[in-house]
């Protein structure tokens, strides 16, 4: 009997492993990067398939998941910002309600044993229920979503492709979302390519920063995932809302004010920082660890040695750490079409209300004006705007080469901008948008061919995103002397919408070679 049972157990194991590996060898939908450990997620329970991932992606970007069909997962988890909600300390959900915390970046979820800032969820499959049910996020219920999905013409087909029959149920819905999120692996930053000896070398500052991070930060942010997934109190000043983090889950006093250690990967683009987004820049974060750590009952011993609070970091050390942190930005991940909303085969907004207004037009989200009077900044920024105009004209004329040249000029003007002449709040604001402009301009310049897109499509996609970052800078810093117009064309970018900036007289549409009629809906804001 014992023998029989062993054989059965063994053959069962072989069978499970065979399924697991055959799925992987046929199509490497999920690869464990060379420098990464074994994932936590139980793939055997949810084997990835192309159709499953595609369904998950469609669901991820579908606002149908919210009560009034306005908020999708992608609303608060935006790819270019490392799947966080860009520029928001606390995420904005349904009806523009503020959530309790800053949306967490999504990357390398297959390795995470717990989810959320407070660690309340132990299984990735169960996580989507949190934002779905939260009244300030999607304010919806899973049964309602399943009903809505069943009533669409598209979803039963997509479920059939993914799971073999058109049945739409909780398990399939949640597992499809997991499949998509699991594919979001970020492992191609400059850091990764340097440690894997793929022809990238650290600069002296980056190398110095790397050593410092290993010495002073790796207690909580160990390589290669740059988090140990633990919960810690890093000595933040208490705020009025008195969020106690992990304590809410465990109800143990020793867990008060502890929050999940987030990964440092892509940290340059996931601003603002901490569970409540209290720090706008990485400089502020480093300052906090150097001199801002407050004592508390549950303070982590790594930020309080004996009587000394914080981690001492000289200015040079902070600068070097910062240089190293920038090497953790994985541009390939941040722009990978596999994760991009605009890459969906059909505008997935199957039942959703299109976002008809430029979202930044809402005055409620604007910070107070911070006019920049400093002339060298003004001058260099004006040059950036001039290159932007050239770029717009090139796109209007569908001249990809000229667009590439204009983007290169824009980048060179951007490099000349000296932000140190700005006030500290201005610097923070500037940095937030600087990285995005940099990213988009580089893509427009490189004009690499992306599968399924022509060069001009790719450039226009990034041009819209670049415009969205330039607009708040010009407006908040009051950098325009004449009125400018921020415009939106709904039909642009394969129905995803396109934004651009122009002066009042200029109505050349950079998206359709001047054919405004193809926009469907047009809207604009003059400022």
């Amino acid at each position: 009997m014992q023998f029989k049972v062993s054989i059965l157990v063994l053959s069962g194991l072989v069978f499970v492993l065979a399924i697991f590996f055959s799925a992987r060898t046929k199509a490497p939908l999920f690869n464990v990067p060379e420098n990464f450990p074994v994932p936590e997620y139980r793939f055997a329970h949810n084997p990835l398939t192309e159709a499953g991932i595609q369904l998950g992606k469609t669901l991820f970007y579908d606002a149908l998941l919210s009560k009034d069909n306005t908020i999708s997962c992608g609303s608060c988890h935006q790819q270019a910002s490392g799947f966080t909600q860009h520029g928001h300390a606390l995420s904005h959900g349904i009806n523009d309600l503020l959530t309790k915390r800053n949306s967490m970046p999504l990357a390398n979820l297959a390795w995470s044993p717990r989810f959320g800032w407070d660690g309340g969820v132990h299984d990735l499959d169960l996580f989507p229920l949190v934002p779905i049910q939260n009244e300030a996020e999607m304010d919806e219920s899973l049964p309602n979503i399943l009903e809505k999905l069943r009533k669409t013409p598209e979803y039963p087909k997509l479920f059939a492709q993914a799971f073999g029959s058109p049945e739409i149920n909780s398990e399939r819905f949640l597992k499809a979302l997991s499949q998509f999120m699991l594919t979001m692996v970020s492992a191609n930053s400059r850091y990764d390519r340097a440690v894997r000896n793929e022809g990238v070398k650290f600069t002296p500052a980056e190398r110095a920063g790397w050593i410092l991070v290993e010495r002073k930060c790796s207690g909580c942010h160990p390589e290669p995932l740059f988090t140990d997934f633990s919960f810690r109190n890093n000595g933040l000043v208490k705020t009025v809302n008195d969020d106690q983090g992990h304590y809410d889950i465990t109800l143990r006093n020793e867990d008060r004010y502890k929050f999940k250690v987030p990964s440092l990967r892509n940290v340059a683009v996931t601003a603002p920082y901490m569970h409540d987004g209290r720090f706008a820049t990485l400089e502020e974060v480093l300052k906090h660890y150097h001199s801002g750590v407050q004592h508390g009952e549950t303070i982590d011993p790594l930020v309080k040695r004996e009587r000394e609070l914080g981690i001492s970091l000289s200015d040079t050390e902070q600068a070097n750490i910062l240089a190293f942190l920038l090497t953790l930005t994985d541009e390939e991940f941040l722009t990978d079409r596999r994760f991009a909303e605009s890459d969906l085969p059909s505008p997935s907004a199957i039942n959703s209300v299109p976002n008809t207004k430029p979202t930044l037009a809402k005055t409620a989200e604007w910070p107070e004006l911070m006019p920049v009077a400093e002339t060298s900044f003004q001058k260099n920024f004006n040059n950036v705007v001039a290159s932007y105009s050239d770029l717009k004209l090139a796109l209007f004329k569908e001249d990809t080469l000229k667009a590439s040249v204009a983007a290169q000029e824009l980048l060179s003007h951007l490099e000349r901008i000296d932000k140190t002449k700005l006030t500290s709040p201005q610097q923070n604001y500037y940095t937030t948008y600087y990285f995005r402009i940099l990213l988009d301009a580089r893509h427009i310049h490189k004009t690499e061919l992306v599968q399924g897109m022509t060069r001009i499509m790719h450039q226009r996609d990034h041009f819209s995103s670049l415009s969205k970052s330039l607009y708040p800078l010009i407006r908040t810093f009051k950098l325009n002397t004449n009125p400018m117009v921020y415009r939106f064309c709904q039909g642009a970018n394969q129905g995803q919408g396109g934004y651009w900036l122009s002066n009042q007289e200029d109505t050349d549409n950079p998206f359709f070679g001047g054919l405004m009629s193809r926009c469907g809906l047009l809207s604009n804001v003059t400022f």
Partner: protein
Amino acid sequence: MKLFFTALLLFAFSGVGIAQPAGSVNLVFSNVVGNENLVLNNKQYTNALGEQFTVTKLQYYVSNICFVRKDGSEYVVPQDESYFLIRESMPETKQVILKAVPAGEYTGVRFLIGVDSLRSASDISVRKGCLDVGGEGKDMYWAWNSGYIFVKLEGTSPQAPVTAQRPNHEFMYHIGLFGGIGVKSTLNNLRTAIVDFNNTDVRVKQGESTSISIRADLNPFFNSTTSISFAQNPVVMASPFSQKIADNYQSMFSFAGILLKKPASLPPKSASGMN
């Protein structure tokens, strides 16, 4: 873990080819307050502290059912067929039908009030029927602290203070938390109800159906090891006090006799089980 699988396989084999004589058992749950039947919304009751209350909602999970034989041995209802969600507002859910209980004499039954930790931490694929968070179990689940709500009792009491969220003197007791999984540790509010048949001869006969009446009394819920006051604790969810309520409701279930006839008006129970 290996041992677990071995046990599982042994268990599976032991059942093959052996047809044991079996009958069906209906556990019929009657929710009461002392000597009075529970009537939702319209009837007022008084707790041990003299506070008046009406009940608008009562629902709870019953799982991992196990019968104790006269010789002390036990019959454990197969795991996948052992999850039920009782809702006072849905009479059909108050009958738990167990189709294949081995014939014999039984002295008692016990069950978990709630959903065991293994199932609470299991893959979503084995959470069907009343455990489906996108279906029957939709209002019995905490997404933010992954786990089922074991018992939900809501109502109003003039003694419950008025707040902006509760303008009509509402009280709410949502009790859950299974102890957590891995390094995530939470309170453990799982409690086992032990229902003794009080020397009543409870026989399960082959091919026949036996209906056992189980009384769920709200008096012990409010006053057992701890007296619960609507004025003091109008809302209890995931807080340390929830343990006191769980301790209280552990003793709310008792045996209320054998029902000679199947209640005629009730349709057979199957919808809210796992199968």
